[in-house]
């Protein structure tokens, strides 16, 4: 069901953990739907993401997308981090099963939520960043069957 990359990031998730006094923290998803992701960002004065950590409650794809998303934003500046879309995460994982696409959306959203928190704390505005939705799942589900 999962690609080798997904399995690798699930079995050996990168950047699991917490960052104390993080520059930004974002938590998205909800327990009702079975996925919660929390991203911690450590951003330096040049708006470079020096470090990133995550914690995830969710399925294999949720863990793998969190792990991959953290890898993709690590060392980037916040503008570059904004470019890390769910598509980018999926591609980096060699794809996800259709029913798991929402996990990649969640990962994107978690990054955005952490950036939003950082922006709020620092009173800055990040180009293209919107206030995170409280429930990422609404209306995002893909129907596999389209007859």
């Amino acid at each position, binding site marked *: 069901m999962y690609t080798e990359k997904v399995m690798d990031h699930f079995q050996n998730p990168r950047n699991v953990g917490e960052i104390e006094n993080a520059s930004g923290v974002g938590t998205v998803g909800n327990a009702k739907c079975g996925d919660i992701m929390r991203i911690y960002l450590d951003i330096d004065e040049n708006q470079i993401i020096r470090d990133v950590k995550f*914690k995830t409650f969710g399925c294999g*794809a949720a863990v793998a997308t969190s792990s991959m998303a953290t890898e993709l934003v690590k060392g980037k500046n916040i503008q570059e981090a904004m470019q890390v879309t769910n598509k980018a995460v999926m591609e980096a994982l060699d794809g996800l099963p259709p029913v798991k696409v929402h996990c990649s959306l969640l990962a994107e959203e978690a990054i955005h939520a952490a950036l939003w928190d950082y922006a709020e704390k620092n009173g800055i505005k990040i180009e293209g960043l919107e206030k995170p939705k409280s429930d990422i799942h609404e209306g995002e589900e893909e129907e596999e069957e389209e007859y």
Partner: protein
Amino acid sequence: MKKLIYLDNAATTKTSPEVVSAMLPYFTEHYGNPSSVYGFAAANKEVITKQREIIAGVLGAKSNEIYFTAGGTESDNWALTATAEAYAAKGKHIITSKIEHHAILHTCEYLEKRGYEVTYLDVDENGLVDPKAVEAAIRPDTILISVMFANNEIGTIEPIAEIGRIAHEHGVLFHTDAVQAFAHVPINVDECNIDMLSASGHKLNGPKGIGFLYIRKGVKIRSFIHGGAQERKRRAGTENVPGIVGLGKAVELAAASMQERMDYEIELRDYLIDRIEKEIPYCRLNGDRKKRLPNNVNFSFRFIEGESLLIMLDMKGICASSGSACTSGSLDPSHVLLAIGLPHEIAHGSLRMTLDEETTREDVDYVVDNLKEIVAQLRSMSPLYEDFVKKQA
């Protein structure tokens, strides 16, 4: 081969080698169509009758009350839709429970769209249907009560004899989905006043793609699949002779060793339950502790999600299942776990392990040892656990 501990016997079982041996001649040697006139094929008709007798014997039924189908799902669909049609003149109300298999629930939804009314009974925190609630739900236009013999997720065995008695007293037909219970625990259709009963071959070490519906003589339902005159004109389609022979053999074997197997499985099951309860914190046994299928263990582990748990177990060679939504691609966790009152996030973190007679104590020990570690590891990366710990502090 990699270590493999198969603890998902409620999903499907291994077809036992004796069953396969019994089936084999019917593929390439005695392959004739039982409806044919010539002796070569007509003998297969008798072979089918013999399997019917074996199954009827186990249920305390008559052999011409057993109708072969393609599995439990078809049996459930047939029982519900055909009863609904046959008795529509009497009424259009059906009673069932909230924890039935989707083969029942989705068929009920189908009927609801066609003008039938369905009462879905609540269950208690152990998954038990209250017979009094069944009685209270009966109306003059009630034509059918369908309550499963035992639940496939949490293993709870329902009070079928009492429900049957109530149905009988009120002159309402009673169907039970016994897919998980038949040939695993004793069932007598007369003692339980069962009018219809569904079963499936692959849940009892028989082949996939074969099952049966028991229909008590006198029940007026007609066919669900129309065509040839097979199964006394009630179920059309060339008979799956090897499948029927395999089912008969599996039932024969299961019935012969039932008590022994139950004793063995119950002891192992309780050992597994005890170790988990003692050694893994923040867990909950789902389903009734005593009124429970001999081979079913179902736990919820707080703060973690079921699919991750399954994949981690899989990496250790352990096959199990979960009530997590993620395993089915939907968002809601198992309707059964919600019906027994679990909050969503706890329902998501559930694990079903269903043993069989080949499971050993060493297997169980290996499973618990690994499970402990895996649960700890997943909790260490869970934001819910993080919040919980911080709150405790």
